[in-house]
C-alpha cells in the first residue's frame, strides 16, 4: 500500500475557506464525546490530509485511533473494522469507494451503531455529499446523513501561489512569484500534484545544480507530462 509522504498535520493544513471544518476536526482529536463529522469534496481538497493529520493529532493527545483507507478495500476486509469503536477516534477515508459492496456497507452500518453506543468520535470522508453516495443500504445512508457535513472547498489560485512559494522556501529553494505562476498556468492545479512537483523540482535542481528558472521548470513539467 503506497501513498505520498506528506507529514500532514493539522497545523500545516492551509484552511482557506475550510476553517470551521478544521476547528471541528481539531475538537474531535481532543475529547471522546461521540462527535461525528462528514467531510466531502473533490480530489485534493484536503480530505486525506485532514484525516491523517487528525489521526496523528489524536494520537499525540494519547488517544487510540483507527484509520481505515476504504479506497484500498479490495485488498482489505470488513473484518478490520471489528472492535475499532473501542478507540477514541475512528477515521474512515473515501467511503464512496465501497458503495454497492454489501459486505462493507453492512459492516460499516454496524460500526456506526457501535460507535454511537460507545460515544466514539467518527470522521468520514467522501467525494460527494451523503445523499449522493451510491450506497444501497438505506440504514447506512440515513446514519451518514445524521451529522454535520462539510464540503471542503479547494484553495483558490492566490492561496495556491502562496502555498507553492512557502513550501519552496521551507525546502530551502527560491521560487519567484513568476515561476510559481508559470507552474499554476501550465501544470495540474491540484494541491497534491503541486506539492509532488515541488519535491521533484527540489531533487532535480539539486542534481543539476540549477536555479528554479522558468526554462528549467518547463523542461521538468514536459518530462512529467510525457506518458
Amino acid at each position, binding site marked *: *500500500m503506497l501513498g505520498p509522504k506528506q507529514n500532514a498535520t493539522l497545523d500545516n493544513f492551509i484552511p482557506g475557506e475550510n476553517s470551521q471544518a478544521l476547528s471541528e476536526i481539531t475538537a474531535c482529536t481532543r475529547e471522546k464525546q461521540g462527535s461525528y463529522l462528514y467531510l466531502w469534496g473533490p480530489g485534493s481538497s484536503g480530505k486525506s490530509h485532514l484525516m491523517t493529520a487528525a489521526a496523528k493529532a489524536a494520537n499525540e493527545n494519547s488517544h*487510540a485511533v*483507527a484509520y481505515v483507507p476504504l479506497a484500498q478495500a479490495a485488498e482489505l476486509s470488513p473484518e478490520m473494522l471489528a472492535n475499532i469503536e473501542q478507540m477514541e477516534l475512528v477515521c474512515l477515508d473515501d467511503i464512496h469507494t465501497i458503495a454497492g459492496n454489501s459486505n462493507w456497507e453492512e459492516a460499516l452500518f454496524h460500526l456506526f*451503531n457501535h460507535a454511537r453506543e460507545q460515544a466514539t468520535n467518527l470522521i468520514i470522508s467522501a467525494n460527494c455529499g*451523503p445523499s*449522493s453516495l451510491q450506497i444501497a443500504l438505506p440504514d447506512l445512508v440515513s446514519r451518514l446523513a*445524521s451529522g454535520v457535513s462539510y464540503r471542503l472547498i479547494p484553495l483558490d489560485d492566490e492561496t495556491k501561489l502562496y502555498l507553492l512559494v512557502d513550501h519552496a522556501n521551507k525546502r530551502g529553494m527560491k521560487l519567484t512569484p513568476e515561476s510559481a505562476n508559470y507552474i499554476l*498556468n501550465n501544470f495540474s492545479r491540484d494541491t497534491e500534484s503541486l506539492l509532488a512537483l515541488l519535491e521533484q523540482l527540489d531533487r532535480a535542481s539539486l542534481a543539476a545544480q540549477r536555479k528554479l528558472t522558468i526554462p528549467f521548470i518547463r523542461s521538468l513539467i514536459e518530462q512529467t507530462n510525457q506518458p
Partner: protein
Amino acid sequence: MTPWNRCIEHLENTLSDQEFNTWIRPLQVDEEATEVMLFAPNKFVLDWVKNHYQEQITLLLEQLSNGQITRVSLGIGGSRRQNEPETTPAKESRTRIRPQVKSNLNPDFVFDTFVEGKSNQLARAASVQIGGNPGRAYNPLFIYGGVGLGKTHLMHAIGNSILNNNPSATVLYKHSEGFVAAMVRALQHNKIDEFKREYRSVNALLIDDVQFFAGKERSQEEFFHTFNALFESKQQIILTSDRFPKEVTGLEERLRSRFGWGLTVAIEPPDLETRVAIIKSKAVQLFGVDFPNEVAFFIGNRVRSNIRELEGALRRIVANAEFTGRPITLEFAKEALRDMLAAQDKLVTIENIQKTVAEYYKIRTSELLSSTRSRTIARPRQIAMSLAKELTNHSLPEIGNAFGGRDHTTVLYATRKIAELKESDHRIEEDYGNLFRTLTS
C-alpha cells in the same frame, strides 16, 4: 522517550502516511524491560502486522534499546493499562439468582422526547400501554417502518418506561447483529448455556432490526427458542424491522409467523407539521436552542426523507452559529445548508459547465467547442473557460483541450478578459453570477 516511541517515530518517517496510520497507529503497547507487547484491535490487523511489520519492528526495537528488547509479541485487545480488570469471579456469579443484565437503553430516548404526529400515533399509543403493562397488553410488539423514523427511539422509550415503573425489572436491548455476535462469542467460549440463561431470564427483550437475522440460521434457531421461552412466561418481546413481518426475507417461516402473533404497528414518514415539531423539539433537547418557526419550516420543507437527515441539517446550522456567533435567522439557515441542499451535490465537471453555459445562452455545446470567433459564441466560451478555472481543479492546458483543443494561453486570456468585463459590464457580471450559482447549488 521509550524505545517504542523511537520505533514509532522511525516508522512514521519511513512508511507512507496512509500505511502508518492504517497499521501502526491503532496498535497499543505494553513495554517491559526485555519485551514489548503490541495489541491490535482485531485479528485482521493483528495478522497484517504480523506478516508485514513484526520482523522490522523487532529488529528496530532491538537496535533502539541497545539489545535490551529481544521479543515483540502480538495480541488482540487494549493494552493492560487500559483493560479493565476482571472482577467477576465465577463464585460470585453463582450466588446470584439471575445474571446481572445491562439494559443498553439510551436514557434520552423516552416518550417525552418522542414527537407525536399522525404518522406514528398508533405505534406510540401501543408503546405507552406496553410500558405500563409489559407482557400483558400486546406481545410481541412489532414496529416497522423506513429508516430514521423513530423505531429505535420508541423501543427504548418502552424499555425506559418499564424500568421507571418497576426498577427491579430486567430489560435488555440488543441490535439483532449484537445478538448474533454475542451468540457466536458464547459458542466460541463454550458459554452457550450462560447465553441462553441471560436472554431467557429477562422481563423485556428488545431486538432491533430483525431483518439482519436473514440468512443466519443458527442465530434464528436460538432466537426462536428464546422467543418461545419469553412468550410462554409472559415476558415482553419488542421487535423492529424495516418491513412488515411477512415480508422480512431470509427468515424461517416459524419465526416470521410468530413475529405477527401480537400487535404489528407501522411508523410512516412524518408530515410537514410533525417534521417542524421534531426540529423544534430536537433543537431544544440537543442544544438548548429555540429555533424560529420560519427556520424550522424551511428545514422541514426541504428535508423530507427522514428524521436523521433533519438532525444533520439542524446540527450544521447550530455548528455554523456557534462558529460565527451569528443568530439563527432564515437567511443564516439557508446559507448554512447550501451545500447540503444542493440539488446535486456532485462535483462540477467541465462538460457540465459547457452544457449549462450553452443552455443559458441558447447556443449548442458544439458551438462552444468550434473555432467560431463571432462574439455571440466567443463570449459564452470565455465565460465557460473562466468558470472551469474557478470551479474545477483541471490544469489550464486541460481546460484548453476540453474546449476544442485550444492553447492554455487562450484560457488565461479568457479568464483575464472576463474578470475585466465583470468590472465594466453589468450584464456579464450578472450572467457570470447566475451561472456560478446554477452550477454550485
